[in-house]
């Protein structure tokens, strides 16, 4: 009897140990990737890397400025499309919990959230590239569609958490609906909305698949949204698979920048939203 209990306690302890080991080992690949990318990438980053465009194999001093500018422009335009629509749609969903349109809208957002990025790329390709040719703007549109579900859901969840008494207080002062939402509800939920926006930017900054057949890639610095444009993730993909060391070095440097940008944005999101949270 006593032996049995000892065995059971031992088994329990053994399982706990196993859980701890397995759980902690999940962190290892992330650390391995972080360390490897930063070590391989940080040495490649210098002035000419940040100011030049890519050069043919064999020529020294190639850079990624075109991809940096391209990524920023494409993300900027994607945000311009997605942020207002996403926030408004989140408001719509949180304010109309029972309407039939809200049900279908919520379902659509759920579906959109699960759609693989490559499929969104295909659709952007069919809608915008087939008729008008490759363009940075079609890339922005594809990325905007990817941002939408993240912004919508975080806005909706945040606003649903706010107590009804807040809305009532505002309505009782004779405020019209749009002012209740924009002046009271949204400011009180700003931290959640903001975190959704930042996370969505972090998510699309590294997104490559939808850009393969929309923004396409371009070897010179370009700011024309109606023409093909290079982006950091696409540049990494393009040069990672080449056998040339010069080009791979560009890809390592670009990976380092992209990885740091995305991770810092994620961490900042956590910190800022905690700080900005309105105490209810």
């Amino acid at each position, binding site marked *: 009897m006593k032996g049995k209990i000892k065995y*059971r306690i031992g*088994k*329990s302890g*053994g399982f*706990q140990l*196993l*859980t*701890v*080991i*397995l*759980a902690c*080992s*999940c*962190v290892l*690949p*992330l650390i391995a*990737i972080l360390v*490897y*990318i930063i070590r391989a990438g940080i040495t490649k980053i210098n002035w000419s890397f940040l100011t030049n465009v890519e050069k043919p194999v064999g020529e020294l001093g190639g850079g990624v400025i075109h991809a940096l500018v391209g990524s920023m422009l494409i993300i900027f335009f994607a945000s311009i499309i997605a942020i207002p*629509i996403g926030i*408004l*749609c989140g408001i*719509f*969903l949180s304010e*109309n919990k029972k309407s039939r*349109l*809200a049900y279908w*809208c919520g379902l*659509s957002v759920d*579906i*959109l959230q*699960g*759609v*693989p*990025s*490559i*499929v969104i790329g*295909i*659709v952007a390709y*069919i809608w915008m590239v087939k008729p008008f040719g490759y363009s940075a703007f079609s890339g922005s549109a594809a990325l905007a569609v990817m941002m939408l579900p993240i912004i919508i859901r975080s806005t909706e969840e945040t606003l649903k958490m706010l107590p009804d008494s807040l809305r009532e207080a505002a309505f009782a002062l004779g405020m*019209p609906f*749009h*002012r209740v939402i924009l002046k009271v509800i949204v400011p009180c939920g700003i931290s959640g909305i903001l975190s959704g926006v930042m996370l969505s930017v972090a998510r699309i900054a*590294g997104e*490559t*698949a939808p850009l*393969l057949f929309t923004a396409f890639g371009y070897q010179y610095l370009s700011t024309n949204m109606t023409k093909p444009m290079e982006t950091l*993730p696409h540049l*990494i*993909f393009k040069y*990672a*698979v080449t056998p040339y060391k010069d080009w791979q070095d560009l*890809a390592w440097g670009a*990976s380092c920048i*992209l*990885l740091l940008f*995305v*991770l810092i944005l*994620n961490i900042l999101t*956590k910190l800022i939203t905690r700080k900005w949270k309105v105490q209810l």
Partner: protein
Amino acid sequence: MATPVNNELLTRPDNTSGRVISSSKLPDEVKGTKRVRRSHRQIRTENVFRRTLIIVGLTMVVLVLGILITLIVQSTPSIKSLGAAYLWGKTWDPVRDIYGALPFLVGTILTSFLALAISIPFSFAVAIFLGEYYPKGWFPDLLKNTVELIAAVPSVIYGFWGLAVLVPIVRSFESSIGVSSIGYGIFSSSLILAVMIIPYAASLGRSMIQMVPSNLKEGAYALGATRWEVIRSVILPYTKSGLFAGVLLSLGRALGETMAVTMVIGNTSFMPKNIFSTGNTMASVIANELPEADKTVYNSALIELGLVLFLVTVVINMIGKRVISRFTN
């Protein structure tokens, strides 16, 4: 615009008596006017705002329907000319106009399920670790945030790292066990995918485990159960549908993941012989071939792959969401 202050608003109490002139006592010509006009403007804006919200809500529905319809319409050339044989054909040879998608279906299923099998022990361990053993403290917080960061790393970076680090390791592993040692292939892709999908099942599992009512657990403890026995016979049965939903969400991610897989799977369009051979998934073949697919049927066959991918992931995600909402209610 500086709105001039309306008389009515200025009917403040005069300080001597402390009395307020109620607006109903004001002469009629003062009452209303600007304040009323302003309010009328507000009412108009309010209606515009309500309508905008409805339009935006409608837009989302139209967008998703549009995606579905576009994919179906653009796939029709291939559906018409290839029929159901498309899904069973073992040969994919665009030069000879033969389009059989079976190698990609098999490749996708193999990589996804292998990845799932590898990642489940880890993601469940994280879920149990954070949900039951150590729900509070700085280290669990750190672990939780770090695991969430796994999902934040761009997939192209996973792919690049896999190419540079994982493929050589897998190559030497393969030669040590005596299979064709290429390094690229389904096994490498699965390893990368396994890492990438850990956070999905882990974070959902964690929140599900935390929702287990403590009186259930205490009941078992009171009977002299050990911690492991409580986990096995109370927590896991209680949360099994939630854990299942987490696995489904992970699977949805794995099926649609493109870049990392494309970079390490080897991109060959033959039927994979075993888990170490090279291959292609649906997503990776689209990524590789869509920009150069000029023939109508070729192009349409790739889009049909996209349609299949879309439908499969939608179904999996919908089931997952259903299970979650049933569980949480």
